[in-house]
């Protein structure tokens, strides 16, 4: 309507940008305080000047949060950070694979009742996990009892030093109460609804004709999946893996209930303990928070487009 090349700037535009900038400041204030505090030296850290910029850049707080402080008897977050990686990466990959297969069946191999089953699965996305938490804990504890003889056996193995990693992997991933493997399985199971939903919607967009052509060429269930669907689903996998990575990395309730000792706890639980402790200074809590936030923030910055798609898929509109 109006001419685009207007020289004068309308006052409404100025107000608009002012509002947008003020909103941006609101969202960035916590980031400012996190970064500023984390980069201050010990001499510089003072609650009375918490908004001031650091006078000397220093990584003291980071190092302390990462390694802990033996003089105060605090343990660093490095181990918990690694626990989170050991938990999150395999669980996210496995959840994506399960979701992909489920989505494939529910989108392309419908059978009588498959829509009802989809609805049953979908409801699991919304339940408050408190309603399954007690039996879940008891179940994992009983798995722990069942695997105890095996674990004792593994403990006694005489392994050459270059095969020690086999023992470590078994001890880490045995599915039980208080192991990373137990927590990982729980995340895969309760991830089924959302991963199935995203993949079902994704595969529904792929035209049936493509599969019909494959069928005429004699491809069966697996042939169609590996030759037709899977090569087309790489973006879908990226979306789901990112989604699962961030939700498992950030998860707290399962982690705090199902891991009982610091050696296996993910970083959210360790950070929560750090924040609840009166002997840990606030600058170290801030540095710890930044550490816990860093992996998912980096993913958001680098792969934001896929992150957005996962977000919007959660709204059922796919």
């Amino acid at each position, binding site marked *: 309507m109006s001419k685009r090349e207007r020289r004068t700037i309308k006052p409404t535009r100025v107000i608009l940008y002012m509002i947008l900038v003020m909103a941006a400041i609101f969202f960035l204030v916590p980031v400012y305080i996190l970064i500023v505090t984390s980069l201050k030296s010990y001499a510089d850290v003072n609650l009375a000047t918490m908004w001031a910029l650091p006078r000397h850049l220093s990584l003291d707080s980071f190092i302390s949060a990462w390694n802990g402080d033996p003089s105060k008897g605090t343990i660093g977050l490095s181990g918990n950070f690694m626990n989170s990686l050991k938990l999150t990466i395999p669980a996210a990959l496995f959840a994506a694979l399960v979701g992909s297969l489920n989505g494939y069946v529910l989108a392309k191999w419908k059978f009588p009742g498959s829509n009802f089953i989809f609805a049953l699965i979908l409801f699991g996305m919304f339940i408050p996990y408190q309603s399954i938490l007690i039996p879940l804990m008891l179940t994992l504890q009983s798995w722990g009892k069942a695997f105890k003889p095996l674990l004792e056996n593994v403990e006694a193995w005489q392994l050459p030093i270059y095969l020690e990693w086999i023992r470590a992997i078994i001890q880490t991933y045995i599915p039980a109460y208080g192991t990373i493997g137990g927590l990982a399985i729980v995340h895969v199971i309760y991830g089924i609804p959302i991963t199935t939903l995203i993949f079902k919607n994704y595969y529904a967009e792929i035209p049936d004709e493509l599969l019909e052509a494959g069928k005429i060429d004699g491809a069966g*269930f697996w042939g169609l999946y590996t030759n037709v669907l899977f090569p087309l689903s790489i973006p879908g996998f990226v979306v789901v893996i990112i989604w699962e990575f961030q939700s498992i990395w950030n998860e707290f309730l399962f982690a705090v209930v199902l891991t009982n000792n610091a050696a296996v706890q993910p970083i959210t639980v360790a*950070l929560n303990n750090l924040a609840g402790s009166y002997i840990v200074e606030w600058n170290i809590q*801030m540095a710890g928070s930044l550490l816990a936030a860093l992996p998912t923030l980096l993913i958001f910055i680098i792969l934001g487009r896929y992150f957005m798609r996962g977000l919007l898929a959660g709204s059922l509109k796919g």
Partner: protein
Amino acid sequence: MHWRLNRDRLIAILVLLPSIIAVLVFIYGFIGWTSWASTLNWNDMLPIPKGSLFPNTNSIQLDNYIRLFTVDQRFQIDLRNTIVFTVFFIGSCLAVGLSLAIFLDQRIWNEGFFRSIYLFPMAVSFIVTGVVWRWLLNPGSPEAPVGVNQLFANLGLPFLQSRWYTNPEALYFTPESPVGQLLTQIGLGAVTTPNFGISIAMLSVVLAAVWQMSGYTMALYLAGLRGVPDELREAARVDGATEFQIYRRVIMPLLAPITLSAVIILGHISLKIFDLISAMTGPGPAFATDVPAYYMFDTVFRGNHFARGAAIAIILLISVAVLVVPYLANAMRTEVRR
């Protein structure tokens, strides 16, 4: 449509089967277990005999529930807090999200940059959010303010200072106030107590939660706005509508389904909120920021009141189901039609 079982269709069902079993056991079976446990006299550490799912104890029917709703002060405060949190959280997220989306829809220079800033908190854990906002909203003392109180003092705006989440008070209509007297006259005198008020401390938690989730609402609305065809706006402009009228009369009705989705998603998050409370405030002064999800965790895993915790969990589940099931049923119906 004729459906006949063949080899490939059998494989398809077998591939889905483990997930079906997992969902039936770990979701529906466990919910059934929790429901049954909520009717037992099991509020202490009791051994579970081998081969049994429950300890040897008697059923007390709905006593755990009745106790929660009649004598359990903490639970009643929790209900109040959840309602306050849900209303303010959803309301603020919708208002902030919709406004930001409309502003960003005005051919903004570097829109993607602003969008990323509004959205990045979604990528962060509620635990991190809780820890950071605990320090930001830590009031400190009047002489030595901390966090945003200090910022307000530095900016010369001390009147904005507040006790934030340390304030145990609730805003409510006292029986002496005009509204309170009116309520008493029409037989609603029971609501003129703090139990039907707005917990002030809870609003601090709402602030942190809105910081985290309003960008998500913005993204939902922005996706909706981008779906509105330009021809519609053009047609309205030709008819002489102002920009405001176009939003009010043409675009807002088209965004109604998005508002519904957002309410469902934000609603179930707010009913389940646990991580943020846990990291930011815990139960708070006089349970001012306690919620049922936190109470359940506390009473089961710290107090061994298994049946009471199970009852709280089932109440939570029912409240979420009331919100979600009609929505899901509707979504499924349109799905089948397609």
